[in-house]
């Protein structure tokens, strides 16, 4: 029985460059990579060095605090390069593929065994297989601590953010595998609830009975944090685990085949993408490989992950552990002459200060701030758009004044890090980044205790 949950806030945006639903297979790339720097709340300890030979599923690095959080190689071949960022942070491990890649073998379970397996068994198989980090924990969005006792697991089929793979694409003909994944998650904690943003995605018919909740409203409808905020009755329910829809399939693949999964469905979309569509490709592919041809209209920004939560990298980099979407937008080359006085039929906005609000067609986004940074003028757009009713215009001042208790009382830990407050801010204050960093600092402090 599907329940509909209404959330009134959020943002319905209107972006052109939507991906076509067809899935194209993509050739395997020459190199594969994994980006430890993009996995939040861990400190990686490298277990390989440049020149080492690895198989698919060989151990590459672990978390220093929790060595059970293992990260495995998405490909077989030679470690070509380990790229470091500032202060020797490990940015990227690049593997040059062999023609003949070999798999590491892990223990496999059949469907019956999964149904009767103990919690410890599933935990250890996932940790050993390198997929445990796909399960994350609210409120900090860290990798789930196996010892914690969550009130359930939320499987999110997307949040309506442009652009991520469509559940109708990655769930197509995957009923059995999805079922295996859900059964194994049920061994970890119950209930396992599947949430889907109502307006954005259609799901295959077979999946409808699985979906417990449909969330109505704009982005980030379907986000686990938002769902929890609206559903929780008491403070005990704050601790929850969550998994992304497609990752359930990866978990099922690992458990039922004993092989580290190497392919998933990704999406390449946005105005600057030559051919916006779904792709099935290797996990950890280089961005250039997925992005395909440059349409040649000037500099392009590749955003890995969605436009609100993703990060941008150059074409030489690879897709991160959690990401499954590339959104390509144009970089603005020239300032627009006297744009201040234009009605702005083509300017995307949350406010009503441009005529684009009456336009129904898709709008072109670019990766410019569209203004200089100013002091907060108290317009209140951030509080209006916040899906979990934080008051960012007050909370950020509490953070700047180091009044963390006050920020917490405002609901800092309910923050879904959706990015909408930063997006709408006319003073161009990086509110989300401030919240994210404060949350990360708080997590570190709590973990040390």
């Amino acid at each position, binding site marked *: 029985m599907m329940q509909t949950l209404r959330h009134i806030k959020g943002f319905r945006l209107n972006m052109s460059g939507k991906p076509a639903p067809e899935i194209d297979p993509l050739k395997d790339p020459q190199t594969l990579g994994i980006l430890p720097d993009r996995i939040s709340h861990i400190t990686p300890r490298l277990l390989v060095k440049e020149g080492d030979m690895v198989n698919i599923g060989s151990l590459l690095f672990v978390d220093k605090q929790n060595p059970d959080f293992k990260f495995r190689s998405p490909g077989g071949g030679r470690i070509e390069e380990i790229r470091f960022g500032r202060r020797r942070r490990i940015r990227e491990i690049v593997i040059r593929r062999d023609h003949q890649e070999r798999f590491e073998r892990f223990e496999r379970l059949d469907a019956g065994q999964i149904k009767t397996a103990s919690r410890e068994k599933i935990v250890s198989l996932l940790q050993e297989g390198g997929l445990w980090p796909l399960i994350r924990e609210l409120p900090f969005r860290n990798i789930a601590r196996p010892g914690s006792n969550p009130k359930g697991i939320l499987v999110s089929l997307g949040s309506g953010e442009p652009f991520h793979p469509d559940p109708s694409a990655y769930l197509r003909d995957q009923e059995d595998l999805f079922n295996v994944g859900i059964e194994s998650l049920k061994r970890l904690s119950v209930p396992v609830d599947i949430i889907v943003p109502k307006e954005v995605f259609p799901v295959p018919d077979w999946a409808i009975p699985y979906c417990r909740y449909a969330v109505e409203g704009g982005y980030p409808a379907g986000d686990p944090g938002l769902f929890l905020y609206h559903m929780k009755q008491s403070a005990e329910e704050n601790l929850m685990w969550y998994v992304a829809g497609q990752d359930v399939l990866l978990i099922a693949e690992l458990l039922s085949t004993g092989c580290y999964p190497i392919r998933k469905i990704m999406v390449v979309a946005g105005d600057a993408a030559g051919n916006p569509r779904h792709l099935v490709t290797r996990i950890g592919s280089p961005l250039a490989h997925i992005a395909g041809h440059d349409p040649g209209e000037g500099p392009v920004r590749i955003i890995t992950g969605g436009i609100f939560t993703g990060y941008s990298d150059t074409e030489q980099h690879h897709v991160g552990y959690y990401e499954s979407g590339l959104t390509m937008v144009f970089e603005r080359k020239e*300032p627009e*002459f006297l744009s201040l006085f234009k009605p702005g039929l083509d300017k995307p906005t949350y406010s*009503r200060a441009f005529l684009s609000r009456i336009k129904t067609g898709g709008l072109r986004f*670019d990766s410019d*701030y569209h203004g200089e940074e100013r002091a907060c003028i108290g317009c209140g757009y951030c509080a209006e758009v916040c899906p979990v009713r934080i008051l960012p215009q007050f909370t950020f001042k509490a953070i700047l004044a180091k009044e963390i208790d006050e920020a917490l009382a*405002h609901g800092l830990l309910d923050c879904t890090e959706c990015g909408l407050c930063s997006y709408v801010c006319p003073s161009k204050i990086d509110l989300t980044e401030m919240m994210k960093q404060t949350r990360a600092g708080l997590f570190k402090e709590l973990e040390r205790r």
Partner: protein
Amino acid sequence: MIRIKRIFDRLRPHFGKSGRFSGLSPAYEAIESVFFPKLRPVQVSPMVRDSLDVKRYMMLVIVALMPHYAFGLFNVGYQSQLASGLSPQFWPSIRIGLKTVLPLVVVVYAAGFAWEALFAGIRKHPMSEGVLVTCALFPLTLPPTLPLWQAALGISFGIVIGKEIFGGTGRNFLNPALTGRAFLYFAYPAQNSGDTVWTVIQSGGAVTADAVSGATPLALAAAVEKGQDVHMALESAGYGLMKMAFGLYPGSIGGTATLLAAMGAVFLVTLGIANYRIIAGCIIGMLGTALLINLAKTGESLPYLSLNPFHHLVMGGAMFAFAYMATDPVSSAHMQGARWVFGMGIGSLTVLIRVFNPAFPEGVGLAVLFMNLFAPLLDQIEINLRLKRRIRNV
């Protein structure tokens, strides 16, 4: 466009770090960015940002004020022609209006811009757009006969004391334009209040004693003596409801046009720049308080107490202040509920000051400033109430 770009390209080096005018670089950049907004590629997520910025936000308020300037130019000249015994035709009126208003605007902008540039230069901050709105609002609240030096002094006080010493736009808690106006009112009452300051008298006309007494409706209503009817008194001086709504009578330069202000309010609310809660709160507070006073009056009380609530609304600069001053996002309340209370406080205080304080014919400016002081308190109350309902997550 290319020609303009070339001019900026030629000027830019002089305002650079080693240029001759490096101290003026915030002022230069502010001007350049109006023509060519600076490109700033986003580096932290979210990787796309809204098209709205503070510049556009403020620019739209100035756009909303343009009809008031057009009206003000005409009205100043029209009243001057009438009072000087000349023919109140359109073009001569506009000419007198321009002659009176333009110097005021130029002086106000020059002084305001200079202060903002000075503080921005010292702080090494970019110049904020708020000053442009302040300088657009301020002249509209002034009497047309004001000496230019007083206009300069007023805007200087408003910007420096009302805003800059607290850190500039966004950190002020008072409306800077009203702060400057209130300063002038208290420091130079002779040039800022009374019956004679609202009309420019030209020499050479056939001046009649009767025409010169250009009392404003607010002053008239306050002066009605016991036993008389306030509505009759206004009516006999020519102040009907419609006339006051159009605002074609002696008063501050652009503030008397109640209908224009209402249209401006609708414009700003439609575009999401002004908050409708504040404006609606103001109107409700004003009508409600006026009604209560109507009900409370006895035969012994002043006739002003019996003035129709709608007369209050159309008289003087109330609607102008509701639409443009009360809705200043920085100095108003920031929470939605607090905005209602904030508005109602303004409306209600305006009526109370007008009726019970013979020294202040127009109370709306002081009412806005007074409620500005209370806005943080109102916000705090609402936040506390709201946080109590929240399920803790620590």
